[in-house]
């Protein structure tokens, strides 16, 4: 009915516009056109107002006639399981907010952000604490705040709090060092109680506003601790978000209750409890027995998924993954990997479909870029490197990599493949890749390391500690930071560039993209960047494992799904939207 009315209104506007155009002599000057446009806009506004009145009247009528309006019930307690290692041990404002599983699900419930990324499929930019914002160059930003937001202790949220957060969060820990919140010293200004302005060190374009995913902290609580934010224990976790902390027991549970005074109206659920389990098995048992309603992060394993399918009062939600996996080639080390032909042959030599089937039991999709195929900026014309042993062999033969001693392996093409011991599925994948590359005469030896040593090795390619590594990240739809993996060392890319890739064209396109305020032009740069990476192959993107979420449906409905499942760092929506049946 809504759509019909919308269509009708459009038609009316169109007719009005048409009649105006025909009635008046054809507009000749720009002034006249502008005048006409203004009139049309005015008429449209009147129409919208009239429509709103109609809707309102209809609602009143429905209420008066006792027509059952669809109403969502409030109440219920959602129990969310986490395995112990993913848990939160303290409430300190540190990198655990970003790097532990429970941490990054925890704080979006307690703290509001200036704006929030909406759920799939649009991942729309939605206002939160800020109702609107302005920027011309993507460098200087002005945020206008809502006036009805209040912290859990009753103190109103003002521009002072936002300015305080923007200024101090990047210094909290190595945690919030993102370009969209690192400001020029002294540039953070409180214009009035509800307006704040700041200048970033570098442009971030205008596709997404600044200060993504940053929790707004109450200045009146945190101010004494700016020198060392870790010195504040944050026991009460006062924020302005839809949930309030009720009780925190390290290594046991985190208990939230609905914030009755939330500016956006209280959430449907009365309580959310994150509870830790010693093992995945215990977590699965809790889910089946009804002690837990859902898994808090990363869902369940592909093997366990089968157990949940077809159970009464349970549903298994399979979502496209947020984690991308790729091969990182060390281009600093003097090996044949520096030869593009070798990297191409490796990509053609990997049967990704088979790896997905064997290592991920089919729960994964192939990928070709740091941008997901369903995101608007994804370049659809990238080379695919579909599995082709003959082509791979031909490339290597033509490039002169021959097997002179007849042992089945080409001379010099012996590489070490690095993977961390924690990633069990990826290790299975690495073993398969090793076997597949043997088919084209490339001899892979698998080196398994503990996670931290692994990270240290791949992030220092110039130390020559690795040759090829299985790597993964979760860029998310707002994935600009991911491209820093490709910025050359010469252009300041030291750090994330695990491949030691250097391509001046890419650096140029990256800077241009970051400075670009026009969304279409920005997309063009992103297309170019993706193409450069796919052609030059510093990283060979392979696949993205799905997220499998078994959830209970006996009590609740309204699980919100995005890439990465129903509960991730980009998706607090389940906690906002879930409600009693």
């Amino acid at each position, binding site marked *: 009915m809504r759509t019909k009315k919308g269509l009708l209104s459009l038609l009316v506007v169109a007719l009005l516009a048409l009649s105006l155009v025909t009635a008046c002599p054809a507009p000749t000057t720009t002034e006249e056109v502008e005048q006409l446009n203004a009139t049309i806009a005015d008429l449209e506004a009147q129409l919208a107002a009239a429509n709103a009145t109609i809707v309102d009247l209809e609602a009143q009528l429905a209420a008066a006639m006792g027509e059952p309006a669809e109403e969502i019930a409030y109440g219920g*307690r959602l*129990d969310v399981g986490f395995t*112990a*290692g993913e848990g939160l*041990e*303290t409430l*300190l404002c*540190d*990198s*655990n907010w970003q*790097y532990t599983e429970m941490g990054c699900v925890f704080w979006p419930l307690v703290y509001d952000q200036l704006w929030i990324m909406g759920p799939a499929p649009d991942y729309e930019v939605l206002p939160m604490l800020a109702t609107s914002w302005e920027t011309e160059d993507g460098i200087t930003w002005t945020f206008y705040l809502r006036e009805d937001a209040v912290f859990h202790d009753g103190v109103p949220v003002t521009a002072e709090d936002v300015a305080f957060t923007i200024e101090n969060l990047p210094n909290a*820990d*190595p945690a919030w*060092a993102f370009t969209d919140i690192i400001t020029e010293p002294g540039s953070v200004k409180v214009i009035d109680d509800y307006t704040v302005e700041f200048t970033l060190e570098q442009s971030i374009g205008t596709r997404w506003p600044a200060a993504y995913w940053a929790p707004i902290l109450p200045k009146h609580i945190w101010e004494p601790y700016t020198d060392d934010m*870790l010195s504040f224990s944050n026991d009460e976790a006062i924020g302005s978000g839809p949930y309030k902390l*009720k*009780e925190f*027991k*390290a*290594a*046991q*549970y985190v*208990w939230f209750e609905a914030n009755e005074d939330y500016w956006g109206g209280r959430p449907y659920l009365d*309580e959310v*409890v994150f*509870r*830790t*389990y*010693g*093992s995945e*098995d*215990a977590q699965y*048992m*809790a889910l*089946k*027995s009804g*002690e837990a309603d859902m898994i808090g992060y990363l869902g369940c394993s592909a093997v366990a998924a089968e157990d949940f399918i077809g159970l009464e009062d349970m549903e298994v939600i399979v979502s496209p993954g947020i984690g991308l996996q790729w091969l990182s080639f060390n281009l600093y080390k003097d090996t044949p990997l520096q030869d593009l032909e070798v990297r191409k042959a490796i990509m053609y030599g990997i049967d990704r479909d088979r790896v997905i089937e064997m290592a991920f039991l089919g729960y994964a999709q192939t990928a070709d870029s740091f941008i997901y195929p369903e995101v608007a900026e994804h370049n659809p014309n990238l080379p695919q490197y579909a599995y082709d042993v003959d082509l791979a062999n031909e490339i290597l033969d033509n490039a002169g990599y021959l097997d002179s001693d007849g042992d089945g392996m080409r001379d010099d093409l012996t590489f070490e493949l690095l993977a961390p011991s*924690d990633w069990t599925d990826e290790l299975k994948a690495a073993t398969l890749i090793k076997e597949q590359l043997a088919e084209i005469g490339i001899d892979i030896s698998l080196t398994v*390391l*503990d*996670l*931290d*040593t692994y*990270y*240290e*090795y791949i*992030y*220092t390619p110039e130390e020559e500690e690795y040759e090829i590594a299985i790597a993964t990240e979760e860029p998310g739809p707002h994935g600009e930071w991911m491209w*820093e993996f490709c910025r050359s060392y010469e252009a300041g890319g*030291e*750090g*994330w560039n695990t491949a030691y890739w250097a391509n001046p064209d890419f650096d140029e396109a990256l800077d241009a993209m970051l400075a670009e305020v026009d969304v279409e032009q920005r997309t063009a740069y992103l297309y170019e960047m993706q193409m450069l990476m796919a052609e030059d192959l510093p990283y060979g993107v392979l696949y993205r494992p799905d997220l499998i979420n078994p959830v209970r449906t006996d009590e609740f409905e309204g699980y919100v799904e995005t890439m990465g499942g129903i509960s991730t760092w980009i998706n607090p929506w389940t906690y906002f939207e879930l409600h009693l049946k």
Partner: protein
Amino acid sequence: MPLKGFAGFATRKALAAVTTIFAIICLNFLIFRLLPGDPIRMMFRDPRVSAEQLQLMTEKFGLDKPLWGQFLAYLQALFQGDLGISFWQKRAVLEVIADRIPQTLLLVVTALTIAIILGILLGAISGWKSGTRLDTFILTASLSMYSIPAFSLGIILMLIFAFYLSIFPLGGISTPASGFTGLGYWRDVLWHMFLPTISIVFWYIGEYVLLTRSSMLDTLDQDYITTARAKGLKEFAILRNHALRNALLPVVTATGINLAFAVAGIIEVETVFSWPGIGRLVYDAVMKRDYPLLQGTFLVFAVAVVLANLVVDLIYGFIDPRIKVGKAE
């Protein structure tokens, strides 16, 4: 002049314990420096850390000094009760560990006490009644329990009693978000303690039964038992006053050694049952590669085991006067 009697015995044992602890401290220091990789870089998962920041942290943790300098600094800090800062929790290691110790003690002391008393009792009965059906039953049951690893026993118990029968909870120390206080809370804790306690008891009891039984059998062959029988003493009096007392000596020794293995069992059981104790802390610290915390927990475990051994040794000297006299002369 060497000290004689119990005082001398106790002093020698205490000195040995101190030496052992010092050796452990040295090992503990070295082990973590033999691992590959740069611990400072590992602290920053974010690779964009600058060279200055790295340098600053290296200095802060004293890693710019030569190895012996680091060792002296480590010792100095240790004597001031400073075990360093946990990479993962960003709090003092001592504080993190102290938070977990009461829960572990509650579980372990309860479980070991039950295991030891019950184990000795069953072992004594089994040895006394050797060859009977009761003996065969106790022996078989103990052997099977002894051979099941604590974690699989825990998971099996959990599956049966928590999942299928829903008599006990799936883990944790208390019902999350229950709001229980006072007596209600402690009842809840007892209910949560049941399965993990049983897992540890089952795991240990077998060993005590077997030890007591074989020691009992040895003792029963001794002449003084025959003499006691000849004197016409009642069976129970012989068991209590002559046999069991002597048979217990090797069991006491084993208790000290066993405590070292108890650590492994505690890590497993606490992890399976999500028990917020020091055992699970070790597991999490391993998963998080939190070296200062691991170093701290290792030290606490080592000191606990050495101290427990010391206590056992002293009790031993007390129960069996031959030991201290024999050594002192």
